[in-house]
C-alpha cells in the first residue's frame, strides 16, 4: 500500500512539473505582469486595451525621437492607450514632459519595471484582453525608419 502512495505522490510531482513546463511564454509574461501590477500599482485596475511602456534598451535615439513626436499627439495617446508606464530612473534620463503623454502615467519609484521580463525593451506596447497579454511589440530601428505611425499600426 505504501508503495502505491509513494508512486501516486511521485506521479503528482511529475505531472506538476509537466504543467509548469507547458506554460507558454505569453502565459508566463501574463503571470509576471499581473503580479507586478498588483505589487507596484495595487490601486490600478487592469482593463482590456493597450499599455505603452518606456523602458531602457533598444534604439535610444529612435526612442527619444519617437517620444518627441508622440508628445505632440497626446490626445491620440490618451484615446489609444489605457496607461503609460515608466520608471523613476527613466524619468531621470528623459525629460519630465513624458509625464504629459497620458492622463494615466504609472511611475515605478522602485525601478523594478526596468528589469521585468515582459519581453519588452525601449518603447514597447502590451495588448491585454481578459487580464491576459495577447500581444507585445517593441520599437526597433527598422520600425523607426518606417515611421512611428508604422510602428503603432504594426501587427502584434
Amino acid at each position, binding site marked *: 500500500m505504501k508503495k502505491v502512495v*509513494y508512486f501516486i505522490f*511521485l506521479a503528482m*510531482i511529475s505531472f*506538476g*512539473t509537466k504543467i509548469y513546463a507547458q506554460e507558454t511564454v505569453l502565459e508566463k509574461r501574463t503571470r509576471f505582469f499581473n*503580479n507586478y501590477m498588483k505589487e507596484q500599482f495595487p490601486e490600478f485596475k487592469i482593463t482590456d486595451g493597450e499599455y505603452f511602456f518606456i523602458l531602457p534598451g533598444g534604439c535610444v535615439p529612435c526612442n527619444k525621437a519617437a517620444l518627441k513626436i508622440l508628445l505632440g499627439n497626446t490626445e491620440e495617446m490618451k484615446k489609444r492607450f489605457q496607461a503609460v508606464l515608466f520608471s523613476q530612473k527613466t524619468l531621470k534620463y528623459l525629460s519630465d514632459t513624458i509625464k504629459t503623454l497620458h492622463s494615466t502615467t504609472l511611475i515605478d519609484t522602485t525601478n523594478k519595471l526596468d528589469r521585468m*521580463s515582459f519581453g519588452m*525593451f525601449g518603447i514597447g506596447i502590451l495588448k491585454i484582453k481578459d487580464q491576459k497579454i495577447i500581444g507585445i511589440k517593441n520599437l*526597433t530601428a527598422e520600425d523607426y525608419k518606417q515611421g512611428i505611425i508604422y510602428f503603432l499600426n504594426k501587427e502584434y
Partner: protein
Amino acid sequence: MRPKLVFLIIIQILIVFPGRGNNYTSSPEFPLVPIDTINLDFSVSMSKSIFVPEYYTQVNYYFTEINEQLYFIYSIDSIKPTTIFKLQGLLTSFYCLNKDSLIVNYPNSDQYLLINNKSEIIDTFYFDFSKIYGEKKIPWTFLNLFSNKNKNGEYFLYFQTTIPSLHNYQRSLDSRIKLFSEPILSCYKFSGNCIKIEKGIGKYPDKFKSLDGMYNYIYHVSLNRNLDFIFSFYELDSLSIYSNGEMKSKYLNSKFKTKEIKYKKNIDDYDLTEYEENSSKTVGYLNHYYDSYRDQYYIIVKKQYPYENEDGTYNKPEDAPWSILILNDKFEKVDEIDMPNHLRKQGFFIVPEGIAIQDKILTDQNSGNSVLVLYKIKNYNL
C-alpha cells in the same frame, strides 16, 4: 521509507523547485590587490583602452554626459582626461587622430567636422561612405578604432566598415559569404582634409561564412606594440592575429566554457529579449584588451547566468558573471581570474600601475558618478 525511494523523491523535488536564480557570486579567493580608488565627477560609458603607436603608450577613451552635454574624453597613461572634446550631440561615427584632433560625423549628414582640443571646428569635409559600401553598411568606429601616424604626418585610421543589419544577412548563405569575404578591418588615409580608403586588412574566420552560428558576429580588435592586430570573437575559441600581412590563429579556452555555443533555430534578430535570453545560456569572449605596459592580453569572458528570476525580473547581460583570461606576449594562457559581480566588465581601463575597473556599488554610492578601483596586476612575462 526505503532509501532508494527517498532519493527519488529528493530528485523530483529538486526538479520542481530548482535553486533560486541570481545567486552567482564569484569565488571568495579574489587574487587582485586593490591599490587605489579613483573617483570621477561624471559617469563613463563606451570606454576603450588601447595602445596608440604615436605616443607609444596606453590611451583610455570614453564618452560622458554632463548636464545633457556630451563629451569625448581622451586620456594618455591615465583615466583622468588629457583632452575633453565637447560634442554637439549623438554621433554616427567618430575618428580620433590623437589627443588634439577628433573627426566627428552627426546623424543624417555627409559632413565630417575636424575639431581641435579646444572643441573648435577647424575643418569641414564631405565623405559619402555609402557610395563605397552601400546603404546598409556604415563605418562603425565605436567598438574598434585605431590611428597611426607616418613620417609625413599622414594619419592611417583602422576601423570596421562591414557592420550590416544582421537581419539582411543572417538567413542567406550567399549574402553571408559575400559580406564576410570582405576584409575584416579597413585602413583609411587621412591627409589634408580628405579620407581615402587605403587597403583592407585581414579576413573573417571561415565560421562567418556558414549559416551555423556566428549569431553574435561583432568582434573586438587590439593593436599591440609590434603593430599586429589581434581579433577576438564571442563564439570562437580562437584569436586571429594579423601580423606582417598574414592572418594566424591561436587557440583560446576559458575554463568556464565546456560546450560549443548553439543558438536555437529561427531566432528573431530584432528581439532584444530573445537575444539576451539566448546569450545568457552561453559562455562567450566578450571583449579583449592589450596591456602595452606589461605586453599581455586580457580577454573578458562572459559566463552563463540565469536569465529570469522567480519574481519575474530578468538579469541583464551587463550584470552577467565574468572572468579575465590572461594571455602572455606569446598568446599563451597564463591565468584566468574569476571576477566579483560588483565590478563592471564594461568599465575596464589599463594604466601604468595596473588595471582599473568600475565598481558598481561605489558608483551607486557616488550618485552614479563612476568610481574605479585600481588593482595591481603582475607582469606574466617576467
